[in-house]
């Protein structure tokens, strides 16, 4: 028989306390009635966060489902976060790009999206002189553009070439994705969506209009779809030899699963 999972021991006290407090609040509200209704915190949307270190957000790319020539994820990211090029590939910002791989021996080829890998030990954070590059508690690596001085050390340090420097004036930014000349930027894993309980735009778009090759979820939760799939596929970390433990994992079809 399957038992319902018992709540973690350290949560039970909190839970009981919360219920007690909720009860107390209800009694207080009742005693204030009739006629008089105090609306303060209830009306305003309750703040969310802070990001929890219990979760580690990650992406799994199943390149068996990643279609050749499809760039729906890139398109979705561009629209969601408002980064556009000026037709100058050397300096245009790029948060996500499609990469084609070819096995020289057999001739087999794959395409994969490549973006910030949200490393557990991010070299971009190590080298940042101002502390603008940082790793959030839930594993998302971000740039605090308020204090980024645009030195581009992080771009040098990143082995995935994931970061871009904004060389030109920016207009028409998205409200949730501020971008400005003179700062470095990269994939945020759509942190604004995650904080609202959603999934990244690329994952949504790939599921809707692409091959459904992207899975988003909590790598720390062994029951999550991403964790189960990553284990089943023995998904690889790109440049695993560097020991950075990226949160973006790749499934390459036909590749022997090594345990």
């Amino acid at each position, binding site marked *: 028989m399957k038992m319902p999972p018992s709540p973690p021991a350290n949560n039970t006290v909190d839970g009981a306390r919360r219920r007690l407090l909720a009860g107390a609040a209800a009694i207080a509200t009742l005693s204030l009635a009739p006629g008089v209704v105090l609306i303060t915190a209830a009306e305003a949307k*309750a703040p969310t966060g802070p990001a929890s270190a219990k979760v580690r957000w990650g992406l799994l790319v199943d390149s068996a489902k990643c279609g050749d020539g499809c760039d729906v994820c890139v398109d979705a990211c561009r629209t969601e976060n408002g980064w556009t090029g000026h037709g100058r590939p050397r300096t245009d910002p790029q948060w996500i790009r499609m990469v084609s791989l070819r096995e020289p021996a057999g001739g087999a080829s794959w395409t994969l999206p490549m973006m910030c890998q949200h490393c557990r030990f991010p070299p971009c954070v190590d080298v940042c002189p101002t502390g603008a590059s940082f790793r959030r*508690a839930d594993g998302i690596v971000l740039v605090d553009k308020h204090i980024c001085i645009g030195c581009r050390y992080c771009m040098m340090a990143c082995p995935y070439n994931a970061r871009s420097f904004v060389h030109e004036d920016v207009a028409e930014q998205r409200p949730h994705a501020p971008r400005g000349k003179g700062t470095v930027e990269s994939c945020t894993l759509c942190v604004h969506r995650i904080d609202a309980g959603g999934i990244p735009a690329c994952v949504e778009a790939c599921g809707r209009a692409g091959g459904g090759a992207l899975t988003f979820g909590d790598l720390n939760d062994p029951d999550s779809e991403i964790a189960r799939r990553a284990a089943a596929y023995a998904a690889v970390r790109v440049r695993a030899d560097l020991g950075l433990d990226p949160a973006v994992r790749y499934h390459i079809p036909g590749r022997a699963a090594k345990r």
Partner: protein
Amino acid sequence: MTRPRDLPRRLAATLAVLLLCGVGADAADNKDSIDGRVPLPRPAKGKGESCIEPTASMRRYHMDYLAHQRDETVRQGIRGRKYSLKECVACHAVPEPGQEEAKTLTVEPFCGQCHTYAAVRIDCFECHTDKPVDKARRTGWQAPPQKESRRARLGAHLGALERSP
């Protein structure tokens, strides 16, 4: 020769005389100015009756409210607290003066007035958009046309070719 100590006094006296004489037609015309030169700020009116804090404290402390909270939002992911630049924009983005019919809104007529007067450069909107959220959302991501439609277009194209002599 004027001693340096007298200089400010002399300048003040000159200024007073000039002001009394109403020097400069601008000064006489410009009733919206304290010193006759710099026009007083006239921030555009925002939506609603009042701001989230009393006007006086918003004027004095808005930058502190925002700066404190932005760090918590960016670094810890705490969202939905009381102060937010998005909320500022939601109420204070208005059409450019003289272009009330314009579709694009901007906070310049609100923020720009005092910031120009005080000569304090505002950097927020170098990176943040000054368009309200719903306005910007309208151009959000749409699913690209599916293969069917491409095929349909191709079919129509080929059909047209066949029909033409």
